[in-house]
């Protein structure tokens, strides 16, 4: 297996060999934030249906790991990030230009079904008798959650900093944690496995999701078509259904 443009073994292992020389039949690799998993899987299927002969492959992960992979030479066509910071990393490296914000996500408190600890507001996260989790501050959901707490003047009593939002959600779903701060889209995606408690908009932090066609995209036209498709009404409706809000 020869992977063009992949400069580190870690990248190859993480994303496989998505891009080749020609666009014919080769799947287009889209690197997208983990929180987009369900929505983008649907959008990708609709995009493939609308464009004959095009296949889209996704690699979902933490935005910062994805940005690292791109900088290390991952042969991807499109990057959809959960934070502008990680998009800036890629843009500053000269690997993408003119990112557009394609959706927004709001924070929400996730609690196990039945809310056994009776969590109601952000203030409850200061309670030391509860088991509470956040995303690590290096990943966007952790950065935003800490911003929300700082703005509200609350020092959260945190028991674990999970590496990504799905890991955090799993611990809430299983009831190991009494609560955690995740995205609204994650609560929607979890169905009945967790309950969401809305954080009022004046205390909420809006996560803006930018996406861009990458300079190394094997077929920039199809890549741009995918970005346009996400921005189209159909794409936005899908995102809305999964708990995202229009930019």
């Amino acid at each position: 297996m020869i992977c063009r443009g992949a400069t580190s073994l870690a990248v190859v292992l993480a994303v496989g060999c998505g891009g080749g020389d020609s666009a014919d039949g080769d799947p287009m690799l889209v690197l997208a934030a983990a929180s987009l998993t369900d929505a983008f899987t649907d959008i990708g299927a609709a995009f493939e249906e609308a464009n004959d002969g095009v296949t889209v492959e996704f690699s979902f992960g933490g935005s910062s790991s994805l940005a690292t992979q791109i900088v290390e030479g991952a042969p991807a066509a499109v990057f959809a990030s959960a934070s502008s910071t990680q998009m800036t990393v890629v843009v500053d490296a000269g690997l993408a230009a003119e990112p557009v914000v394609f959706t927004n996500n709001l924070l929400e408190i996730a609690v196990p079904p039945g809310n056994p600890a009776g969590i109601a507001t952000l203030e409850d996260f200061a309670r030391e008798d509860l088991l509470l989790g956040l995303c690590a501050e290096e990943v966007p959901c952790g950065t935003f959650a800490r911003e929300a707490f700082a703005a509200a003047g609350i020092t959260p009593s945190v028991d674990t900093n999970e590496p990504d939002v799905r890991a955090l959600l799993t611990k809430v779903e299983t009831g190991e944690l009494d609560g955690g701060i995740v995205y609204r889209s994650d609560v929607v995606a979890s169905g009945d496995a967790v309950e969401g408690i809305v954080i009022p908009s004046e205390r909420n932090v809006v996560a803006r999701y930018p996406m861009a066609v990458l300079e190394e995209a094997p077929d920039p036209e199809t890549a741009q078509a995918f970005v346009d498709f996400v921005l189209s009404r159909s794409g936005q409706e899908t995102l809305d259904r999964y708990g995202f809000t229009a930019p």
Partner: protein
Amino acid sequence: MVLGLAAVAIGFMALPFAGLLGRTPWGNLANLLADPFVAEALRLSVLTSLAAMAMSLLLGVPLAWVLARVPFPGRAVVRGIILLPMVLPPVVGGAALLFALGRRGLVGQWLDERFGILLPFSTWGVIVAVTFIAMPFLVITVEAGLRSADLRFEEAAATLGASRLTVLRRVTLPMAWPSIAAGAVLSWARGLGEFGASITFAGNLKGRTQTMPLAVFQALESDRDAAVAISLVMVAVSLAVLVALRERWFRVA
């Protein structure tokens, strides 16, 4: 031919570490390692890996003896279960631990209600997760050592009137010592690098559950120089121990 392939193997195994050295920010190394979060992670790593090694010795040596010396129906199945963590992705092991010993787990529920013991998100949780992943390495090594030992020494001791405990204490264990030492080192080394089961079962909190591998993982997200610096400490510590012990104990085993 053989030498050539061996050279390829050495190159293959050593190359990634050369890559690590190439990315090491030598000039800034002291500063990066002086960060208290590195010291905290190192302390936790040493503490939990040694505690897990002690647990593995306490429980694993008797288990290895039973597997090697006591025939019982289903022994192969028991051995298979004991060795499972070596094969499974550690994250699966961590999730399984959560379902068993978590707050809502099979046994964990009872531990919590009865004794108020909560393993997840605690240092004890890390030790449990590391022991679960690392103990099989000790068991398999010690069992192999016991099986290869000449039984006639034990029989001779027994015919000369030594009790079973005396045979175990004066003959079996001294003869198995090299394999016990090797197994302990192997399980310790595996435990030092443990990541998946630990973060899944015990979470990630600085000073409580964040060991070196978790610190590296988190630093990779934000500060790659720091991540490389921490990795280098792990490589140095592990290599020093493995080199020092190997010559002394593996030779006999």
